[in-house]
């Protein structure tokens, strides 16, 4: 289990939290609150969006690429979906399903665009997705003429469901964990998965051994786009709105989750299990620091330190 040290890190954060509450600021003793079902739900509820983006990012990074456009794709898909709902607020569940399908298809199409730029245009993934980051954001602004779309009171029940809870379990968490499970299957139980690892480790060798490198790469970016679409659905449902300036900087959180999870930025090594843990570390950290009222600027410093710590921990493990 490559991600084991990271798992240890979550434990460390929790121990520090308890110590903090017992000794440093006993008057704010709300440790008990941290371990409630409601708060556990919060951690998943709030980080499923990043998590979904990070799962897509894992595919791309494993194949040796990078996708900087995920935040913009989320915004694009979100305003696309919100605008369709706004047009027909009273339509039935069939329309809601259609809207979700189109929202997902829109994001996947832009992901496909990324893939085509990388494979047919032979652009470096950094450049291609940087361009897409700007293009998708621009589309989102053009589509809404700069103004956000509000769905307060308009959201169809079926769509609202995507942002709500199923019993004690948040639906976004189900989607996130579901995507992790599917990705585990794809990456470790299918030929596609083996091809992705092969391309990430040595693209030339993969090509020579008959791996359809181009096709697989296009598919990888499309999968990433699709998962951005899934994230956009829960995001839109939760916020009852689509805003063209949403998701700014999300690509960095997604990359951070992947890297903390132990996936090599050069490709070929790592996996989606690590990404799940990476996303959870960021989530637990945000939550713990948040409920304790730690100065928001200090929070940023600590988050940066945790990223370095996580990566260092993994490196020691590797040299063993």
């Amino acid at each position, binding site marked *: 289990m490559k991600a084991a040290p990271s798992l240890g890190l979550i434990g460390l954060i929790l121990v520090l939290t308890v110590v903090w509450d017992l000794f440093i600021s006993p008057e704010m003793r*709300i440790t008990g*609150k941290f371990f*409630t079902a*409601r*708060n556990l739900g*919060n951690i998943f*509820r*709030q980080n499923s969006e990043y998590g979904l983006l990070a799962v897509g990012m894992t595919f791309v990074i494993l194949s040796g690429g990078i996708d900087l456009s995920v935040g913009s794709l989320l915004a694009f898909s979100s305003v696309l979906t919100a605008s369709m709902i706004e047009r027909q607020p009273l339509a039935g569940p069939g329309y809601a399903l259609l809207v979700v399908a189109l929202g997902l298809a829109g994001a996947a199409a832009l992901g496909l665009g990324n893939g085509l730029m990388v494979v047919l245009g032979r652009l470096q993934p950094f450049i291609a997705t940087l361009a897409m980051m700007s293009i998708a954001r621009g589309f989102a*602004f053009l589509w809404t003429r*700069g*103004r*956000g779309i*509000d769905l*307060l009171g308009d959201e169809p029940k079926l769509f609202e469901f995507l*942002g*709500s*809870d199923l019993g004690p379990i948040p639906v976004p968490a189900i989607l996130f964990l579901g995507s992790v499970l599917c990705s585990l299957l794809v990456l470790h139980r299918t030929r596609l998965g083996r091809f992705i690892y092969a391309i990430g480790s040595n693209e030339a060798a993969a090509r020579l051994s008959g791996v359809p490198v181009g096709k697989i790469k296009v598919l990888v970016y499309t999968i990433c786009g699709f998962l951005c679409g899934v994230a956009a659905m829960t*995001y839109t449902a*939760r*916020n*009852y*709105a689509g*805003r063209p*300036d*949403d998701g700014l900087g999300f690509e960095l959180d997604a990359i951070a989750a992947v890297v903390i999870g132990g996936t090599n930025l050069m490709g070929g090594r790592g996996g989606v299990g690590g990404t799940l843990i990476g996303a959870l570390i960021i989530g637990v950290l945000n*939550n713990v620091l*948040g*409920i304790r*009222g730690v100065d*928001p*600027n200090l929070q940023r410093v600590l988050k940066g330190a945790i990223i370095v710590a996580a990566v260092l921990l993994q490196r020691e493990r590797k040299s063993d």
Partner: protein
Amino acid sequence: MAKRLLTFLALGLLLVFSCSEPQKQKSKEQKAVSSEEDLTTLAFKNRYIVGFSQCTFEDPWRINMNKEMEKEAGQHMELKLVIANGENRNAKQVADIENFLVMGVNILIVSPRESAPLTPVVEKAYSAGKPVIILDRKIDSNKYTIFIGASNLEIGREAGKYLAEKMGGKGNIVEIEGILGATPTQERSQGFHEIIDSYPGIKVVYKQPGDYKRSPALKVMENALSAYDRIDAVYAHNDEMMIGAYLAAKAAKREKGMLFVGIDGQKEAVDMIRQGLLSATFVYPNGAKEAILYALMIAQGKSVPKEVRLPTTRVTRDEALDYSGF
């Protein structure tokens, strides 16, 4: 071969773009000349050209400001209003103002993106004898004719008074701040605490930034709800964040009886206040109408005060019913 073709194509495109740029400028100059002609003909008809340099068109509050200004100007035949979009860049806004000076507008209205970078060009215009109305944000100099703006400090105080009264002097408050370090954030918090901190029974138990956006505010409120069993009121530095906090409380089924107070007067928030879902918002006035009225007074040669502070309007379920938001 294909590569060479591509290079040619790229070069061709570059050529087209580089040609179109000066053409644009030329047409601008032509416009400038023709508007000067307009000016002389207009001057005979006693019409004044008012140039409004708006810092950005991308913000609903600013879009509404433009609309209200156009509406007010439309009612005064002696004024002609021209609006320039600063595109959220200081350099663009400075260029807009310089263009207005070349065009020879009679009165300049400026709503600066930032104080310091806009100061020199405004000073230049004022020193050249042009009346300048500064809207919303100040510049770092007193070389302007009149400043019109609201006071965030005062709005913060009003929100504090309202909540203190509604809470009966006791209870727990969650404060959701705007962008940390921004002046409005500091003042909206400072004014609020001036009032609230004098009530020993009221405690701000949770205070985190939501960046003036809905989604981060929703997350802040989710955490606050799981950390505190008792939350009586939410004070958000703008309406968008108040809505986010409400959505979080509603999802946790704890919104009943909770007070929600915001700032701005956004349409969606006002609608929800009228439905009784949210408690109050304090309108952050844009001063568009006042700017035109003072421009008119300046045009008529009347003297105007150096500073006009706009009062806020409190919107609740049964107050300010004629206000519908933006």
